[in-house]
């Protein structure tokens, strides 16, 4: 059957996703190290994208994804689902309150460095852009096999910078000199 093609979400999806600015993936029951990622989305003129939709998918603290195809998953995880989404705020910013993910098995049997999978939608985007957030304080990031697919001079666009304890900065640049790497997957 022919795939249904993608279209833009347009400017008015807040009707569906009312929450602006902050997404929370954790509850009191969630095990793991609490972290906050302060993010932004900017366009090719360096201007904020105040009408962007950012979606996050990640493993739990043990590196297990909440899904029947994860071999370590024992059924729905009530303590941590792993999905969050938010509408960027008027300054093009977003905040992710979550836990540091554990290591998910990767290609060639090698564990992947901790990462968040990211989807970006918006007015002016006809398809979703897919990227990842890695962490600069994880020693395994440098040898991650997926990150190794990225040209060396662009890898830093996928690595969140640690600030105060437990907080990181990650900027999504849709176009221009510091353009974020987006994936074909």
């Amino acid at each position, binding site marked *: 059957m022919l*795939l249904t093609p993608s*279209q833009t979400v347009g*400017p008015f999806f807040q009707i569906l996703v009312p929450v602006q600015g902050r997404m929370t993936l954790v509850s009191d029951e969630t095990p793991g190290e609490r972290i906050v990622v302060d993010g932004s989305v900017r366009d090719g003129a360096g201007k904020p994208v105040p009408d962007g939709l950012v979606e996050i*998918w990640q493993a739990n603290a043990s590196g297990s994804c909440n899904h029947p*195809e994860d071999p370590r998953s024992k059924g729905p*995880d009530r303590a941590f689902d792993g999905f969050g989404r938010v509408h960027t705020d008027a300054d093009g910013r977003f905040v992710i309150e979550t836990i540091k993910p554990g290591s998910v098995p990767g290609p060639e049997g090698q564990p992947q460095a901790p990462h968040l999978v990211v989807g970006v939608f918006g007015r002016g985007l006809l398809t979703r852009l897919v990227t990842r957030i890695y962490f600069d304080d994880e020693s395994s990031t440098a040898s991650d096999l*997926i990150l190794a697919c990225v*040209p060396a001079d662009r890898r830093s666009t996928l690595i969140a910078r640690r600030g105060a304890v437990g907080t990181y900065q990650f900027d999504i640049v849709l176009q221009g000199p510091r353009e974020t790497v987006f*994936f074909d*997957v």
Partner: protein
Amino acid sequence: MSRTVSRILPYRRPPAGHHPPNDSPDYRSTTLRHPQQPLVVIPQTLSEITGPVYGYGRIGPLDNDLTRQHAGEPLGERIVIEGRVLDEDERPMRETLVEIWQANAAGRYAHKEDTHDAPLDSNFSGAGRVLTDAEGRYRFVTIKPGAYPWRNHDNAWRPAHVHFSVFGTSFLTRLMTQMYFPGDPLMPFDPVFNSISSERARERLIASFDLGLTKPEWALGYRFDIVLRGRDATPMGR
């Protein structure tokens, strides 16, 4: 750490040129937002082939009826939209979340940034959600949205459309799209619709009027099936 072999069945990649390119100059907002660097091809891992399937939250029994979310009923032509969510191999996508949002019958969105000179309807917010059933089937009751002007170019009007958000079985099947109505005279002029180069692919986005879905004396019926990425025949990994 022990080396865990992850044997996964990847999702088939869409054919090149099937989805619209993000660099579509006729749709003016793409100018500053489309990436200019080539996408980096990566293999699929557990991170990508898993995805949200459990954590949708509580979905109320009337969440799929956009005509019964306020004190009164909205103005406009009541319609039923029904269809199946399938993958390319016609496997039904069961218990997956489908969400819609749209303008009201006058072509006005219940959103502060929509300043189009058309009336708001206090009985219409314009968003709904539903889980597909065991056959991948979904159903919404709503009113037919109006076309609306959007300043992309001189005298630009979006054809009447309903936005669809679909999850499917993994992060990779996630799809945002728009459903259009058969015979809408605005479609040939719309740069968003026409950003899709294949006519067959564009036709996928046009609902079918379905007399069988029509409820006599109550609502017209439209059928709209949604086809998501399917699986490859052979697993990766060793």
